[in-house]
């Protein structure tokens, strides 16, 4: 039995290596939760979202090309992602890949006239929600004094409210002139940020104003003030007009006519004309049919391709479009295009995931820990061997052999069950080695005691094992209980400790009571019952 177990352990050790934790081998460890800081989601909805997110993340990460990644649901609301070998340089790319919702929508762009009527209401809502003082405090007044002074001075005078035409915005990038429809409002925080756009359905917002505009748009009051079935989306890439840079804010229908769920596939490629990276996609049959029907009805209109609430492009429909299309990636590189294609293929995350914990260990640090651990382990082994041999002579050497079996069993079990060895896990091993040594010491001390009492060798050995049994059983059982409880309550690192400790205790129990005893009997069988033994 001993030989069989040792053989099995050796077999496992040679075929599969022991998995090292990221703290030892280097890599990236993430703990993710559904981003829901206010706790609005029902627990079932959250559990469902996590389930789906786990599947999608697994697909994404499998394609990402990391060796032995782990995507694992923990409890009902958490996902652990472990990417071995992801160093500090790939950190942000890996995080983007994991966190990107990749929710693709196709929406009809609406003319800005759809929003005009609502603008003054939006401004009123912002003033009402934030108060005049805090709007002034947002710093818009300092940055664009002329504009705000104009607003304050001419606020009540009812200037023309039509936006300046696009040629003017193109050539000069001048802010839109003061315009107020409601005389009771003399602050127009939102409208004052908008210039009319260069394409249909688009406003332009200077890059320096974007943060404030986004803050306004995030207000629930503003969202409610939008006209029915319209929504506003930012275009992802800024554009430069004259000396200033802008981002387009585009008015679209709220409901998408096709979403990424109907995608069949997506691939990264280079635009044959300009050699720029792009992602081409193909709809499945239902998606293709819907897409071509819709585009047939909307020739000449603009369509917004919305990815995670941002517009990646807004092409005009020249002709009926069939089952495929492309997303131009502009200034991005092929790696980013490849990643986008990957996340589109894997599907959209059902909810935003927040990173609760993130650890990245560079490979050099992990290697250092392993090397030092190895040296320390060797020195430790030498100490134990020397002490046992000096103190218990032949019996000590038998114990060391039993400990070697113990070591093989533990390592074999770790690799057979695919457990990961971490730094805390090594602590668990140290404790269980200590207990394995202790069990042998207990037995030998007992045998010595029996010998001092004048028992015959064979009887003394039997009595020694018998008497030491209760102490070994009780000590191992309590520690095993502790390990199990720690496993139950513990999170990541505590669990790693508990697992190696539990395995170690079972192995040490077996090695002390069974293996040491077998070796002892083999040793005794070569002697007569009355011969002295070396202990």
């Amino acid at each position, binding site marked *: 039995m001993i030989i069989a177990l040792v053989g099995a352990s050796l077999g496992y050790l040679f075929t599969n290596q022991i998995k090292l934790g990221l703290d030892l081998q280097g890599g990236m460890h993430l703990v993710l939760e559904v981003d829901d800081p206010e706790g609005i989601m029902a627990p079932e909805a959250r559990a469902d979202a996590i389930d789906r997110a786990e599947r999608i993340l697994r697909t994404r990460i499998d394609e990402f090309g990391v060796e032995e990644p782990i995507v694992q649901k923990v409890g009902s609301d958490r996902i652990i992602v472990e990417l071995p070998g992801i160093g500090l340089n790939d950190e942000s790319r890996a995080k983007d890949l994991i966190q990107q919702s990749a929710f693709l929508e196709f929406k009809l762009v609406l003319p800005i006239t759809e929003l005009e009527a609502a603008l003054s209401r939006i401004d009123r809502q912002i003033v009402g929600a934030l108060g005049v003082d805090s709007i002034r405090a947002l710093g818009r007044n300092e940055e664009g004094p002329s504009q705000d002074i104009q607003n304050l001075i001419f606020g009540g005078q009812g200037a023309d409210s039509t936006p300046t035409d696009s040629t003017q915005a193109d050539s000069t990038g001048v802010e839109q002139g003061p315009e107020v429809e409601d005389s009771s409002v003399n602050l127009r925080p939102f409208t004052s940020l908008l210039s009319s756009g260069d394409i249909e359905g688009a406003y332009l917002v200077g890059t320096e104003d974007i943060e404030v505009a986004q803050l306004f748009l995030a207000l629930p009051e503003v969202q409610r003030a939008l006209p029915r079935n319209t929504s506003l989306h930012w275009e992802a890439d800024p554009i430069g007009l004259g000396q200033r840079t802008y981002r387009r804010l585009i008015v679209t229908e709220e409901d998408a006519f096709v979403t990424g769920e109907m995608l069949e596939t997506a691939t990264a490629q280079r635009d044959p004309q300009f050699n720029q990276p792009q992602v081409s996609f193909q709809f499945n049959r239902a998606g293709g049919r819907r897409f071509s029907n819709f585009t047939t009805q909307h020739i000449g209109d603009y369509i917004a391709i919305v990815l995670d609430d941002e517009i990646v492009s807004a092409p005009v429909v020249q002709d009926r479009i069939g089952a495929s299309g492309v997303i131009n990636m502009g200034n991005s590189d092929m790696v980013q295009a490849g990643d986008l294609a990957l996340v589109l293929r894997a599907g959209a995350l059902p909810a935003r995931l927040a990173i609760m914990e993130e650890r*990245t260990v*560079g490979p050099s640090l992990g290697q*250092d820990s392993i090397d030092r651990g190895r040296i320390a382990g060797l020195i430790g082994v030498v100490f134990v061997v020397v*002490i046992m041999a000096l103190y218990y002579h032949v019996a000590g050497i038998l114990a060391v052999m039993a400990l070697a079996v113990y070591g093989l069993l533990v390592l074999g079990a770790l690799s057979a069950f695919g457990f990961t060895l971490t*730094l805390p896990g090594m602590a668990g091993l140290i404790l269980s080695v200590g207990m394995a040594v202790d069990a042998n010491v207990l037995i030998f001390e007992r045998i010595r005691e029996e010998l001092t009492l004048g028992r015959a060798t064979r009887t003394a050995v039997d009595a020694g094992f018998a008497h030491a049994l209760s102490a070994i059983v009780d000590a191992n059982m309590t520690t095993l209980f502790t390990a199990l409880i720690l496993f139950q309550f513990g999170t990541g690192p505590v669990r790693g400790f508990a697992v190696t400790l539990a395995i170690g205790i079972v192995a040490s129990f077996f090695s002390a009571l069974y293996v040491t005893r077998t070796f002892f009997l083999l040793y005794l069988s070569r002697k007569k019952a009355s011969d002295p033994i070396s202990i």
Partner: protein
Amino acid sequence: MKLFNQANFAFIEKRRRAYVFSAALILVGLAAMIFNVFSLGRWQNYGVDFTGGSLIQVEFHQPTTAAELRAALGGAQAPPITRFGEDNEFTIRAPLGNDDVETIRARFENQLAAAFESDVFTIVRTETVGPKIGAELERNALLAILFSFFVTMIYIAMRFELRFGLAAVIATAHDILITLGFLAMFRVEIALPTVAAILTIVGYSLNDTIVVFDRVRENLNAKGGRRQDPLELVNHSINATLPRTVLTSGTTLAVLLALLVVGGAVIRDFTLVLILGVAIGTYSSIFVASPALLEIQKRFGDGSAIRERRKKRGAPATA
């Protein structure tokens, strides 16, 4: 070679001195914790694993001092910087903010690049922990320890007697308290490995205590054991297990010292806590657990009265 063969030290007689010693250690530890609450705001020097926040570990390829690094990171406004091990490695802790670790890292990198040449340093580790995770870790570790106390007590009460279980838990709690006191006093950063170390101490201390108690149980159940003077019986049991105690603790300490010397910075704190724990655990199984057993027996009886009464009403109790 035999150590402490036929030893007969009067351990139990010295228990009052041990009480004073233990009480002093615990009081000093508690004082350090209270002092920390006022000066640090927390009773222990919690690392980012508990407080939440970001940690960045940077390695310099040339001799660098903490002061140089601090100057590079904004002088008086610099975040806490700790030397990591004996090499030119440092950890920089940044409190929880709205920035994620990459933003913080980029900021540090820029500051470092401005002060040092770019090929002089490497960032070898980054960590960011949300506040929720830290709070959970603390709660779960505490729950686990308390629950394991409970289960241990029940198990020992079943295998031994209730008072043994109580005494074992008292001794283990004593060890944890003293260890936490030391950690507070030297402001050892409490990180995940430290938690593992404390859990290891729980295991070791229990193991040690049970070995002594096992001998007490055996002697108690031997012929005439119950009639023997409990104090003498316990003392005798401690002396009988002394060779084993010394050998096991000695071996463990030797291995740990090896770890301490060559194990490197990553596990240095961890090993220190373990060494401390093994020393205290050994001490407590002799000087705390065993006296506690006697004290409990003195106050509440050894349970034999109940046993006798159950067996036969009116039979004289032997205590």
